């Protein structure tokens, strides 16, 4: 197994230096090289190369989702994570962290019309402010929330906060200046407030036990600051400015405090997170119920159309079912929320209900179609000889009997939907799983959040299964 990284951590001088980053993060950090997409480039890539040279080890890039860098480095998937990882007190409590190699500013991006109105976070009380989940900016917004602060909208990527800002879905974006300026170049259409909300630093992150390697890396980083290599790299990627020069001077003049671990931050208790988890659970439940209601209504209509309709109706319905079942629900959510945003700008929650509901409708329709076709022909004929119209037979005889057959698979689907609803976090709806991930990232452990999350899911799905079983018993006794 190539991924077993234990040997990479032993400090063997000649073993490759496995370093982790997220190429989805893109330039200037780490991006796939347009000239050769199997290679990566970016200032983090160049820093990894400098460290490799200093250690006499060949750098080997390991792709990892940005949000998982910390967990992966601790697992030993690679020795050092370099991908615009932000310095935070919790990071220093849980991992070995290099000296910061870059100072960035958290800046507010707003629409031009709002540039005079929204200059600070305080101006944004009650407004929707977007950011990337799990970042320092996200934590900053959470801290500001509540006492007249903004409404936090968290994204899994750094492109859509800005496109949604331009589209009017959010009122401001708080992220670091590098990402903000990159988005301004890419898409434009917004204004970056010149006064930073805060400053932060990028660091390399290593496993907690790897402090010896961390110290070697620190020596190399300082040397590259001193000899101008880092400056050259940052200039090449257009992220160098006077602030950076002042920062380097500060680091080189002070060697004592860079690695000081902040121990004052207490681990937040379960009690602090439980209300947020329960609230997120309520969102999951509401989202699932609304989506299922939509799925049942559309599913019944599609099934009836496919069983009773003429060929002209049946064909498009069959295409709908096959298209929905044959493509990932994640893709459908993206298309609905981002793809259609130039045509219709759906609020995130509505897009989530529509996306999940229309997806599950395809599955429901197949259940109902099978159930309708399972009703014996003589039941329908009995209805006909009694003078009932076809519509009445469907409503009074075939439908109710089919519903009894469909109940068990429907319950199954609803329980599946409860869990699939976690996918909507990609379109900024914070439901139970997303909230749990945020909780887990904050405390650096999945054990307690995972158990709580599982308990809440079960608390929702078990009563449902029970209710369905009771109904089935009642109907089968009849």
């Amino acid at each position, binding site marked *: 197994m190539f991924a077993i990284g234990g040997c990479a951590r032993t400090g063997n001088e000649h073993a490759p230096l496995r370093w982790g980053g997220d190429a989805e993060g893109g330039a200037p950090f780490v991006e796939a090289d347009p000239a050769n997409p199997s290679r990566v480039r970016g200032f983090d890539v160049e820093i990894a190369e400098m460290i490799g040279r200093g250690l006499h080890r060949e750098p080997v890039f390991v792709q990892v989702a940005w949000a998982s860098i910390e967990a992966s480095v601790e697992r030993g998937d690679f020795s050092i994570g370099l991908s615009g990882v932000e310095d935070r007190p919790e990071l220093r409590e849980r991992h070995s962290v290099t000296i910061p190699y870059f100072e960035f500013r958290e800046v507010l991006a707003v629409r031009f019309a709002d540039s005079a109105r929204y200059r600070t976070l305080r101006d944004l009380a009650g407004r929707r402010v977007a950011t990337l989940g799990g970042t320092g900016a996200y934590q900053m917004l959470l801290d500001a929330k509540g006492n007249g602060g903004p409404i936090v909208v968290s994204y899994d990527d750094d492109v859509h906060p800005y496109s949604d800002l331009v589209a009017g879905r959010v009122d401001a974006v708080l992220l670091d200046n590098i990402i903000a300026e990159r988005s301004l170049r890419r898409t434009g259409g917004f204004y970056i407030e010149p006064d930073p909300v805060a400053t932060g630093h990028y660091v390399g992150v290593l496993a907690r036990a790897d402090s010896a390697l961390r110290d070697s890396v620190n020596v190399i980083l300082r040397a590259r600051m001193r000899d101008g290599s880092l400056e050259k790299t940052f200039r090449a990627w257009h992220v160098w400015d006077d602030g950076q020069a002042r920062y380097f001077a500060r680091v080189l003049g002070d060697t004592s405090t860079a690695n000081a671990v902040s121990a004052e931050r207490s681990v937040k208790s379960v009690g602090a997170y439980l209300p947020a988890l329960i609230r997120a659970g309520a969102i999951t439940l509401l989202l699932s119920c609304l989506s299922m209601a939509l799925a049942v209504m559309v599913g019944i209509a599609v099934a009836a159309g496919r069983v009773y309709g003429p060929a002209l109706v049946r064909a498009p319905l069959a295409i709908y079912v096959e298209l929905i079942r044959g493509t990932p629900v994640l893709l459908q959510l993206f298309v609905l929320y981002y793809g259609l945003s130039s045509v219709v700008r759906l609020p995130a929650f509505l897009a989530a209900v529509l996306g999940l509901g229309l997806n599950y409708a395809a599955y429901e329709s197949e259940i109902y179609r099978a159930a309708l076709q399972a009703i*014996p022909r*003589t*039941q329908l*004929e*009995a*209805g*006909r*000889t*009694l*003078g*009932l*119209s*076809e519509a*009445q037979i469907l409503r*009074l*005889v075939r439908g*109710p*009997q089919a519903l*009894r057959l469909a109940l068990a698979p429907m319950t199954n689907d609803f329980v599946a939907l409860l869990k699939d609803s976690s996918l909507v976090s990609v379109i900024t709806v914070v439901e139970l799983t997303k909230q749990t991930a945020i909780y887990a990232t904050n405390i650096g452990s999945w054990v307690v959040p995972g158990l709580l999350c599982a308990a809440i899911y079960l608390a929702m799905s078990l009563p449902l299964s029970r209710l369905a079983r009771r109904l089935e018993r009642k*109907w089968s006794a*009849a």
Partner: protein
Amino acid sequence: MTQALDVRDVHASRGSHEVLRGVTIDVAPGEICALMGTSGAGKTTMLRAIAALGPFDSGSIVVDGFALAPGPVPPESRLRVLRRSVGMVFQAQSLFEHLTVIDNVTLALVHALGWTRARAEAEAVALLTTLGVAHRVSAYPRQLSGGEAQRVAIARALAPDPTLLLLDEPTSALDPARRGSLGEVLRTLAAEGHALLISTHDVDFAEGFADRVAVLAKGVVVEEGSPRDVLSNSTHADTRALLRSPSAEPPK
């Protein structure tokens, strides 16, 4: 007197097999006619054609003045008059499994005829009382015995007060004692003026309760007349084959 049912020279086929090859039969109001024959003789095909559940190729079927045309079964919207005139009791009863006895009987009255629920229920209870199953009004079909289900199915078919009542093998699920009491019920219905066409191969039942017997064999009526004439003194080979067959046919 006009016939409740007048079938002339009806041909019907299933695929390449011609099941009915020129059947002529009629039933008058107040009359019980037993359509007899061994399995596969075409009894059910004939009943389904009369009830407009299956197609026929040529000939004519007139029910209470309503003429059914040969060819595919017309859409329900063009069968309203026929549906009022013909009631059908299926061999396996085909009661609506999800409805109670009373709801089975009132369904057509409320939804096809637009009666109020109270009026429909009063009518249903009266019918079920006549048929001796009024005590089972709130039972579900699967809780009924074969005889009870048969009577509820008759009540359901009778509720809209059809001129002609078709019964497909009504005795197949009944023991001899219950066959007798079913016969009594059918005689009462005939006395009220209903015309009954009963497909059966139960010789004793036909002999005991039918006014007239028509023997169907290989798609044609080979013998017709009073039960005594046809069933006691028959010289016809097909009728004798019928008389030799066991009188209980397992339900299909």
